[in-house]
């Protein structure tokens, strides 16, 4: 589904990604772990098309297309979803309005009829129940005055509504207490399917207790230093990231 080759990206002249190679197939769940400042969020943002990054080298193919040729909204309509680490406030715009506009923009691209207000409401109610969210939420302005946990739930609610092909969740677990984490994880697990790939960007193994990944990658200094199965995450939890970096230096030497 997604194939990244030797991707280099920089921001304000500073190179952050230094040769990423990554292949993701439909139906898989990947976890990308790594220390702070390693480039995890940058990778997620570059895939989604956040302005402000320069792609200096390499290529990214998504469903056979050159992803870098597409605008952010085209990528979204082609099924790429980014769960934001820091969801943005949009004062005065209700969740309902935002989500309905978004859903219909994506449906138009897929050649599906737009949903009307009634259809939208019944659909969103069902998803909100899943996320254990109060319906009053719909009339609140997007992310305005939300707690950390509410913001993350809102991201997963959007994920559930938009049903993307490729979901990249950037630290969706951060700022959640155990109960909220479980709700969010259940929401994500409910979306696992043969046609969908999910990428979890996270610091901690904690989330992976709830969502079992197929592949775990360690990203440090702008490169993927090591990939493995779910057991790699446990090892990282016990030993930290230092040994991976040591090991990779040894290999390079």
């Amino acid at each position, binding site marked *: 589904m997604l194939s990244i080759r030797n991707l280099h990206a920089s921001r304000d002249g500073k190179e952050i990604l230094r040769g990423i190679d990554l292949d993701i197939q439909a139906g898989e769940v990947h976890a990308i772990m790594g220390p702070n400042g390693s480039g995890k969020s940058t990778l997620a943002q570059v895939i989604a098309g*956040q*302005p402000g990054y320069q792609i200096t080298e390499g290529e990214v193919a998504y469903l056979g297309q050159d992803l870098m040729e597409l605008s952010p*909204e085209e990528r979204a309509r082609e099924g790429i*979803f980014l769960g934001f680490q820091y969801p943005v406030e949009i*004062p*005065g715009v209700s969740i309902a309005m935002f989500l309905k506009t*978004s859903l219909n923009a994506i449906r138009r691209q897929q050649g599906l009829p737009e949903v009307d207000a009634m259809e939208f409401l019944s659909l969103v109610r069902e998803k909100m129940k899943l996320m254990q969210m109060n319906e009053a939420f719909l009339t609140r302005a997007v992310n305005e005055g939300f707690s950390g946990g509410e913001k993350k739930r809102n991201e997963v609610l959007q994920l559930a509504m938009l049903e993307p092909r490729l979901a990249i969740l950037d630290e969706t677990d951060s700022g959640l207490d155990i109960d909220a984490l479980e709700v969010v994880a259940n929401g994500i697990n409910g979306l696992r399917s043969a046609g969908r790939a999910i990428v979890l960007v996270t610091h901690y193994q904690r989330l992976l207790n709830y969502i079992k990944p197929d592949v775990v990658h360690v990203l440090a200094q702008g490169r993927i230093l090591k990939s493995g199965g779910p057991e790699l995450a446990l090892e990282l939890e016990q030993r930290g990231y230092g040994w991976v970096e040591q090991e990779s230096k040894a290999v390079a030497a």
Partner: protein
Amino acid sequence: MDAANRQLDELISRDYQHGFYTELESDTVPLGLNEDIIRLISAKKHEPEFMLEWRLQAYRHWLTLSEPHWAHIHYQPIDYQDIAYYSAPKSGKDGPQSLAEVDPELLRTYEKLGIPLKEQEMLAGVAVDAVFDSVSVATTFKDKLADLGIIFCPFSEAVQKYPDLVRTYLGTVVPFTDNFYACLNSAVFSDGSFCYIPPGVRCPMELSTYFRINAKNTGQFERTLIIADKDAYVSYLEGCTAPMRDEHQLHAAVVELIALEDAQIKYSTVQNWYPGDKEGRGGIYNFVTKRGDCRGARSHISWTQVETGSAITWKYPSVILRGDESFGEFYSVALTNHHQQADTGTKMIHVGRNTRSTVISKGISAGLGQNAYRGLIKVLASADGARNYTQCDSLLLGHRCGAHTFPYIEVKNPDAQVEHEASTSRIGEDQLFYCTQRGISPEDAVSMIVSGFCKAVFKELPMEFAVEAQKLLGVSLEGGTG
């Protein structure tokens, strides 16, 4: 410039959508202004003597005034002798009695603007006193209103049919000595709307006027007078768009509102005069004096305006809170794009006891637009227990526009409570990306973010108008997809 800003720039640099020009024969007086021209205007309108006298007094006073230059706006000097002060569309001798008699070209113009009169008559329940250039050519729903004793007619008709009402109230809120533009208007006003709601009557429909400047090089000098007698209620809508043209046009309207005891007047405006092109050529100069007088106890006047057009907007809808416990409100969205300049705000003058006022202003600047909020809250010594709340927010799109806030507060009563809040923000790259990442086009995203910013004002507009206003805002920003 980064990608997001470039995108914003593209969005806001498109062309005016209502740019077309209707060919109509016009009955226009020669250029320039002198007493003969004023006599001619008055004669053409078959005005009673008192009206002509008033105009002449105003004109003589105007000669002693000079154009004010304190506002945060810049423009080439206006040659007041190079303006035609009267223009009426020709359509039969005595004006049309029904839509069937209205020039079909004119009706097509309205249709292009999406305001088919017929449809409005039937569906919307809105009585339209349509002003095309200076003379009202179609008035509807009069009978229904007449049954309730409501007078809603062109100003020129009121001068003839209800001279006593006109004489009693005209110039009592905005005297011709008030300011340069109001004085000019008093001398040369062509037409406008007149509305009187008798005691205890609640006007059952939104009263509406669509203004449109058309004839070339003609100043537009509307005069509107609305009186809500004791315990009466009226909601009045004023909306306008204008066709594409090259030359600067002067528009100096005066609106006077009078609310007696327990009366309420709600006045909503959507203003979309031609703003000029991307280089700042052409566009309407809009110098308007709007003022309401809460004359009676517990009276209530609210102004709601959505200002997206004109090259220059100079406008401060105000309320004099004379009656005890009277209430004044001002809700404003002002958008400037390209080279547009707006200096707008309000004045709330607290005279009576326990008077209250609320001011919510939302300024949006894009392109090279300059947007100033100028507001005066004045509490006189007599106004025990006066309260004001002012909130004034600015939103910037791009890096070359400007937002300015000039709040003036004069409090002479120690008992008064005056609150002022202000903020300035920018549509961020991150907000835009959050929306586009959800598949929403940048056009729709900007439109949505701006609508959200203006929500507190839009909710004050009558439903039908709110939808139109939102659409207009979209069109003004994007110039396209709406």
